[in-house]
């Protein structure tokens, strides 16, 4: 069995010039620690530096991601920004992911929950298995959605459906997610990575300059609102974490 303490939190396997980036804490359902974001950031830098033609982002062992790691919690360091240090770190790395000049495709098996969902939505395309689900159960844990999820869901679904998902934390099925435009391709369980690789290979034939510039246009369409939203999200996350209710909520669910 893999010794988690020594295994990298993010693993990279290249296939035909496409970087398959795997969240690699399978026994914790690939929950994201602070260090996961640091490693992801480094991997993304390398992906750009060595000229990969695309990125497929997936979870090890057939499960995408359970969200932020509840055991280690969102705090990082003892400084004034400690309580939500991971939130800001995650924001930055997800922005970095959006800036990657080649196509990025999330391949979701199992589920993408909370911050894991935010991460999947930061990719250009989202492929998911037909039995996968999405959920944002932040409020049940007495914290607030992060990774831009409140903004994105409200933007995409309208205020009331977003509120239903965010306040009640209910699960969204793959079919429903596709219908709402939160998933681009639904595939047989177990084949999400393969399908994502197919798409990445198809896109690798396109002119890289046109791809990069088109991605910039897409990013620009939302950058103004996100620029104002991110700091607010961070402030709310800090307040939420400082409330004792947050600690109790976390304990109850971990």
């Amino acid at each position, binding site marked *: 069995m893999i010794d988690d303490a020594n295994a990298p939190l993010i693993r990279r396997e290249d296939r035909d010039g496409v970087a398959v980036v795997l969240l690699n804490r399978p026994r914790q359902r690939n929950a994201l620690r602070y260090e996961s974001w640091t490693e992801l950031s480094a991997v993304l830098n390398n992906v750009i530096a060595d000229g990969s033609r695309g990125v497929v982002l997936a979870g090890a062992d057939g499960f995408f991601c359970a969200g932020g790691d509840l055991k280690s919690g969102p705090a990082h360091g003892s400084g004034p920004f400690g309580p939500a240090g991971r939130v800001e770190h995650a924001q930055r790395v997800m922005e970095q992911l959006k*800036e990657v000049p080649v196509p990025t495709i999330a391949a979701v098996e199992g589920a993408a929950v909370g911050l894991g969902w935010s991460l999947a939505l930061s990719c250009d395309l989202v492929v998911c298995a037909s039995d996968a689900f999405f959920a944002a159960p932040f409020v049940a844990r007495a914290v607030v959605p992060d990774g831009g999820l409140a903004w994105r869901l409200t933007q995409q679904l309208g205020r009331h459906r977003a509120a239903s998902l965010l306040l009640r934390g209910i699960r969204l099925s793959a079919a429903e997610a596709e219908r709402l435009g939160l998933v681009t391709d639904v595939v047989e369980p177990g084949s999400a990575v393969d399908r994502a690789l197919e798409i990445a290979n198809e896109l690798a034939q396109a002119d890289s300059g046109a791809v*990069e510039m088109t991605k910039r246009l897409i990013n620009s369409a939302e950058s103004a609102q996100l620029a104002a939203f991110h700091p607010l999200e961070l402030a709310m996350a800090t307040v939420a974490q400082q409330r004792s209710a947050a600690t109790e909520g976390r304990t109850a669910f971990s």
Partner: protein
Amino acid sequence: MTQLPEGTPELTGCNEILVAVDGPVRIVTLNNPDNANAVNNRMHTAFTRLWTALADDPDARAVMITGTGDYFSAGGNLVEWLETHVNNPVTRRAGMRDARRIVRDMIDFPLPVVAAVNGPAVGFGCSIAVLCDIVLMSDRAYFADTHVASGLVAGDGGSVLWPLLMSLLKAKEYLMLGERIKADKAVELGLANRVVPHAQIKQEGLAIAHRLAALPPRAVQDTKRTLNLHAQRAITGILEYGISAETECFTTPEHRAAIDKFLDR
């Protein structure tokens, strides 16, 4: 001039950008003295990692940035430029991507940053200085944004931020004509906070950095963040356009002529 603590390339992995630790203050020194601290491609890439690395330092509370010797930074390195920005579209795109990231990273950087502009700050050097939070200028220093004269759009520099600091008309004047802006004029325009006698510039910068470092960290950092939301909103869309427009200029005969002229010197 009082000696500053010795910097090392440990954090940046780049001998030309040194970082020194002085209690809670980190001193960043542009260190390419044979070329007036001009920013070569290696330094440019290191800049894309510098701010994140400094933000991850839990003991840091403020940063000062300055240059080795009597220059702040002469801007880009045109010798390398020909190879990476003019002749090769792939590395050109990568360079512009980095340029975009550096501007954003500086605006997002949580700690207060003091620029001790110890000499000429031109082009990229000028952009970096003005993105800091408090800008001190040696009485021998000047700013100049020379993009236009060399055939480029001032995409990653003045045109993005200057209109927030000075009148739009003045920004146009200095960006289009590319004239030098001496220290006292820079203060008058709003591009710098104050002029300091040359011999004291680094010491004065360090003193202010320590003052900032001693303030309640949360209050000072969130105040910076709040104020920089203005900058963030101001650059949104504009930086993207400016850099795209600048990217298109590298292959023009005018830019080529400007490089040839420089190389002939």
